[in-house]
């Protein structure tokens, strides 16, 4: 087994991983391509992208109006 050391072991493990991979299907739209799901996913992605900006603007606006004369 003297030849099976170091980089060869890593290479074999890598090839094994390549052959062992499967589709994860972690995301709902990856395996569910119905129109409703896609639409909901896009709408919520837009909603979650805009919300932090609106919150930050709202907080700063409130603080300005409340505490800056």
């Amino acid at each position, binding site marked *: 087994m003297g030849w099976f050391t170091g980089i060869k072991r890593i290479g074999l493990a890598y090839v094994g991983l390549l052959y062992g991979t499967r589709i994860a299907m972690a995301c709902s739209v990856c395996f569910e391509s119905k129109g409703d799901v896609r639409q*909901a996913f896009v709408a*919520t992605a837009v909603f979650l992208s805009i919300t932090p900006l609106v919150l930050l603007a709202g907080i700063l606006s409130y603080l300005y109006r409340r505490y800056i004369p």
Partner: protein
Amino acid sequence: MIAGCAPTQHDELKIPNGILAMLFFLAVEVMLFSGLISAFLVIKAGTALWPPSGQPRLPVMATGINTVILLASWATLWLARRRLFQTQLYLTWLGLSVVGGFIFLSLQGMEWIQLLRFGLTLQSSTYGAIFYFLIGMHAIHVLGGLVGLIVVYRKARAGAYALHPEGFEMAFYYWTFVVGIWPVLYGLVYWN
């Protein structure tokens, strides 16, 4: 302000740390509920029949009355805030807010017991899982707010907010969030 120095305009513009912290904390809370609501909407969109067949329907009317109670508890807190520096009447309004929150939480608990008896559990379906997680997350926040209101009530009785009302303001902001998010959840989850 440094001792011995006259107050400057800069000193008067200071935002209380507690208020600032609470506002950013609430921003985090809004993002938490936004994520949960988004998950709910995506799951709902992927299901042909909602609520799924064989699962109990949610008590829309009873929870609607409970919603009115929660909104009333915010209204009494708002009245207490308006009267903070005027009369001792604010203690009564504050107490009513605590009672309103307690009634809401109690009725929610009774509703959950009924739903569990009817077979809606975390494991029964995705519907049950998202319902208990989303509504349960709100219930935990109501519980936290209720504990906060009780602390504020005790401090208010001792006259702690006569000069420094930041603590009261923080509780008011938090309760406003807890009450404000509920009609959204009620509309999304209960009205199908």
